[in-house]
């Protein structure tokens, strides 16, 4: 087995932003990357791919029972109907919250997350605290997000140890019967699709 690498990066300027700039200019000069492609990648995840995608999936599952059935049976195919495909979302699983069962998603080993439907993960999802604690103390973690579950509610924690990526389908808030799909999607938060929030009715 290989030994950990020695730390070549420490020979470049110590400030991380300078080190990154230096590496970028090296890779561009060597023809390994194209700076405009880097800009396009950043733009994609800052402006095009994000939790609004997942919110549309959730809203449709609330309004279209046939879609919900397809989503729970094969989430990858159902989500592909929206075109939300790609890296870190190839194989999706949808987890339905009910009055009896609450689902919450974590990746204890790194920070696996369903990029095409939720975008890139928030900093807290990647934190040591969330990764360490969610599997051993899910109720304590949820409490820190303001979520106090009844003791007899079943809690299911999904540790993303393989290439499956999970999206929680939160319960539809009460008092939203007259909202259409777009208005419903606007109520769906990123955190509710990770499972650390329960949605409240629109005010």
């Amino acid at each position, binding site marked *: 087995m290989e030994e950990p690498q020695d730390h070549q990066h420490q020979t470049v300027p110590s400030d991380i932003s300078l080190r990154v700039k230096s*590496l970028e200019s090296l*890779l561009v000069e060597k023809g390994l990357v194209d700076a405009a492609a880097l800009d396009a990648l950043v733009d994609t995840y800052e402006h095009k791919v*994000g939790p609004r995608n997942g919110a549309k999936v959730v809203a449709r599952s609330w309004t279209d029972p046939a879609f919900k059935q397809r989503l729970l049976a094969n989430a990858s195919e159902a989500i592909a109907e929206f075109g939300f495909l790609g*890296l870190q979302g190839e194989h999706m699983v949808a987890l339905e919250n009910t009055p009896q069962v609450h689902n919450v998603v*974590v990746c204890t*080993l790194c920070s696996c997350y369903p990029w095409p439907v939720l975008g890139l993960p928030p900093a807290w999802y990647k*934190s040591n605290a969330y990764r*360490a604690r969610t599997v051993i103390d899910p109720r304590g973690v949820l409490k*820190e997000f303001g979520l106090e579950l009844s003791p007899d509610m079943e809690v299911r924690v999904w540790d993303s140890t393989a290439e499956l990526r999970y999206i929680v389908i939160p319960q539809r808030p009460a008092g939203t019967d007259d909202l259409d799909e777009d208005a419903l999607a606007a109520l769906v938060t990123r*955190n509710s699709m990770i499972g650390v929030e329960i949605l409240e009715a629109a005010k």
Partner: protein
Amino acid sequence: MNGIHDMGGMHGMGPIEHEPESTEPVFHQRWESRVYALTRAIGPWRKWNIDTGRFHIEQIPPAEYLRMSYYEKWFTRMVTLLIKTGLVTSDEVASGKPAPGSKKESPALKPEAVPAVALNRNIPPNNDPGILPKFTPGQRVRARNMQPLGHTRLPRYARGKVGEIDRDHGVYDFPDTNAHGQGPKRQHVYAVRFSAQQLWGPEASPHDFIYLDLWDDYLERV
């Protein structure tokens, strides 16, 4: 490897510092966005796979791993793998300049190809009727007690513990070999349901369950 990255169940990490969702930026610093994009743009050269990439983050020494932010770890991994695979030399990283006379590579990922790359599947389909599952939903299984020195996706907290196959996810590359150039050794992956009491003892809530996605080679019959 029994590394610091395998942190499920650890104590002492403090509270979860969560920013309000409505104001948290996708990237907190510009350099983070460049590290993310560089990693994605280097991907199409196909010099390493996802499991090799994960293993190189796991090899960051524990004290540094805990100190570093997420994208700092990505940056460290990228530098290590760029050098290891010969795409750059450590002298070039140190100077930020190509070595005199080094050849210009092509083609780099072009901006017009980014939408396709963002949408691309990066892992093969998970249906392969030629590879049979060793376990079936409802079956009780034990996660193996094993301590490999290399890459593995079986966390310590589940080793030796008994759970139940919840569902069969289909066929996937096996990280323990795939990370080390020993082939994909494709096999079935299952969601395995463990009770919190089985994992953490009788003090845990009887209503809590932890699901892990585990490969055939991580499991044995009970």
